[in-house]
């Protein structure tokens, strides 16, 4: 269904610049300037608001099919729109696993039906995420879902030969393997970052080396076979060094960091509150600072939420019994503003780069991550950077409530989101 209405956004600070008007005509940005007027157009007064290209998430768990008790494509994309996203990559660890053309097409179709944001399915690398046999990567690519990003996320493709073959195979259609870097033997029973706090709490450690050793191997494999590799939710200072080194060699390596790894540390685990249980685990202050610096200097390409909804009962229990993961779509931009913009590490054009242009480029999403300019697709989000509020999980559009930010004051609020010209969020409410 083609959108034909016109919307005039008045006085928005495009990428944080001085106020401009922007006219959306149908699905496209028609004009950018000052003193624009358009008879019959809906008007959005955007005084003081920052206008960004619609955000793109490379790492979202929408849970459908299989775990509709925690999220569905509809609720997850509403949450995404509320967070300013116009495209999300839906991870493959559903039930059944998204390892066939049939499942990825189903998820893709559900996304199209939801209308809140584009859903680009991620295909599993191996059948059932088992690491034993390559899934039909070509069939998923050729399906209606046009899968480009493949990942066994939640599990690591730990077999070196399997990883090599997957990297090589997807070169045929410009695919990328997004690796969940976790050496399985080093992390058996792991509950939290291995360090001073785990020693004190008596929780089995998840050492940084388990992530770093896989990243080291994978960047070498990618270099050897000339393929693209993407590092999911990079979480340690050592991983940053490895990616920086690989990039200095000119290898096709990209990496993402989650908002929670930019803000939270393993000190929070002292509460034994499972809302802080996540994989990879919260690390140390030193890691957080290295991740911020790496995102600022571009070593880390993008922020990806790893939005991981879980039903209440999977978190309302003792630490060891709890599920790993946090929701993040509706707080991502606020956390980035808090950790990166308000600290002076990133300006708004760079935020647009890290949360829109680069993830869209990695996922080869043509219509997203574009400049805010006439003739471009009208995928846009408007943020009020002056807003400050305490996070109230009950207000989320997501079906789940497992946010680590409950009760924490964060800056910024997404007020309007447009997907190809149509408002998906108006005055902070998904429509």
């Amino acid at each position, binding site marked *: 269904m083609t959108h034909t209405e016109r919307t005039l956004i008045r006085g928005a600070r495009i990428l944080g610049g001085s106020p401009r008007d922007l006219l959306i005509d149908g699905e496209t940005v028609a004009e950018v300037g000052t003193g624009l007027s358009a008879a019959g157009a809906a008007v959005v007064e955007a005084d003081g608001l920052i206008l960004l290209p619609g955000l793109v998430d490379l790492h979202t768990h929408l849970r459908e099919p299989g775990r509709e008790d925690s999220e569905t494509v509809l609720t997850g994309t509403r949450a995404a729109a509320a967070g300013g996203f116009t495209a999300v990559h839906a991870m493959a660890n559903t039930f059944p696993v998204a390892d066939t053309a049939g499942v990825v097409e189903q998820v893709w179709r559900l996304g199209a039906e939801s209308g809140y944001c584009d859903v680009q399915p991620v295909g599993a690398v191996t059948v059932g995420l088992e690491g034993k046999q390559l899934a039909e990567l070509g069939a998923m690519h050729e399906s209606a879902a046009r899968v480009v990003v493949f990942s066994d996320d939640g599990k690591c493709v730990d077999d070196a030969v399997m990883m090599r073959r997957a990297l090589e195979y997807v070169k045929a259609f410009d695919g990328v393997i997004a690796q969940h870097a976790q050496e399985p033997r080093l992390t058996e029973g792991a509950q939290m970052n291995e360090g001073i706090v*785990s020693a004190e709490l*008596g*929780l089995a450690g998840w050492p940084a080396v388990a992530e770093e050793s896989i990243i080291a191997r994978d960047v070498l494999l990618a270099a050897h076979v000339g393929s693209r590799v993407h590092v999911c939710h990079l979480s340690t200072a050592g991983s940053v060094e490895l990616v920086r080194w690989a990039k200095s060699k000119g290898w096709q390596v990209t990496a993402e960091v989650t908002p929670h790894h930019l803000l939270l540390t393993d000190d929070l685990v002292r509460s034994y509150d499972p809302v802080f249980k996540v994989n990879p685990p919260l690390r140390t202050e030193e890691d957080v600072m290295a991740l911020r610096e790496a995102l600022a200097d571009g070593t880390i390409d993008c922020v990806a939420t790893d939005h991981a909804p879980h039903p209440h009962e999977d978190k309302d*229990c*003792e630490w060891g019994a709890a599920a790993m993961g946090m929701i993040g779509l509706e707080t991502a931009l606020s956390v980035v503003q808090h950790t990166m913009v308000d600290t002076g590490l990133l300006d708004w054009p760079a935020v647009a780069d890290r949360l829109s242009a680069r993830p869209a480029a990695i996922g080869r999403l043509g219509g997203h991550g574009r400049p805010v300019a006439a003739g471009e697709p009208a995928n846009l989000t408007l943020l009020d950077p002056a807003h400050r509020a305490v996070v109230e999980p009950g207000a989320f559009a997501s079906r789940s409530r497992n946010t680590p930010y409950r009760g924490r004051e964060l800056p910024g609020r997404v007020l309007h989101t447009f997907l190809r010209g149509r408002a998906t969020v108006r005055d902070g409410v998904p429509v």
Partner: protein
Amino acid sequence: MKHHLISATDLTRDDAVLILDTAEELARVADRPIKKLPTLRGRTVVNLFFEDSTRTRISFEAAAKRLSADVINFSAKGSSVSKGESLKDTALTLEAMGADAVVIRHHDSGAPHRLATSGWIGGCVVNAGDGTHEHPTQALLDAFTLRRRLVGGRNGGAGADLSGRRVTIVGDILHSRVARSNVHLLTTLGAEVTVVAPPTLLPIGVSHWPCEVSYDLDAVLAKSDAVMMLRVQRERMNAAYFPTEREYARRYGLHGARMARMPEHAIVMHPGPMNRGMEITAEVADSPRCTAVEQVSGGVSVRMAVLYLLLGGAWPADTARTDENGQPA
């Protein structure tokens, strides 16, 4: 945190000395023909055990009964309910039944903390061992035995702490809740603690603990007033923590020749159950210097003191009980 006993770090030096002094007084009850006090009559103590531990459970049971409390033993092991649901739902059930104190043993580190802070129950929570985290009453009973043996005098050293005493803890420090609680408590009481283990059985981060760390048992024996041997599970060698039982026993086991290098007054402790031939030889285990059995009897007195002070008596510097938010309970 005085409403609960979750970690040895909950206790100040004065708290710990008061518990030990109270335990000394209560120990005298055990010498009477009628080993029972009316202190906790009408109060309900639940032993909530998610993990088998007959020794610890009967010790708490004896302690509560000698104080005339009603005791309910709840063994949750083998429950078909999933683990997460069972802790919360079990807690709500116990709350509905009016439990004044819940003594919990759980396989997950942090479960007692969660029980105490989640709002599921209002009663006192006593940690009887959680995963590889802590076992504070074991540390208290070890301190009780240490004080009797190394400080001594009338009333088992009442009023005194363990200042200047050197205690060496040997074995699987990585997985030991006994070690964690003892390092904290004995340090709080003024002792100098050294942990000894092969590097594989020490946690990353141990250098931040308030103790010395050594890989060499022989180097520390001569300057130890007490050597505490921890149980080492034989299965650990399957995960390559050490090559063989024999190698472990050779390098870290306490045998007669090693014991002979300890100072004359020094004692050998073991929280039990012992792996004879592994971390301790029969010769050492059966020697008069080994306090393993004495530790068990001290355990009842110490647990009586903990229940008495949590449920009946007053803690120093904190006569009004407070919840985790610092509000009067």
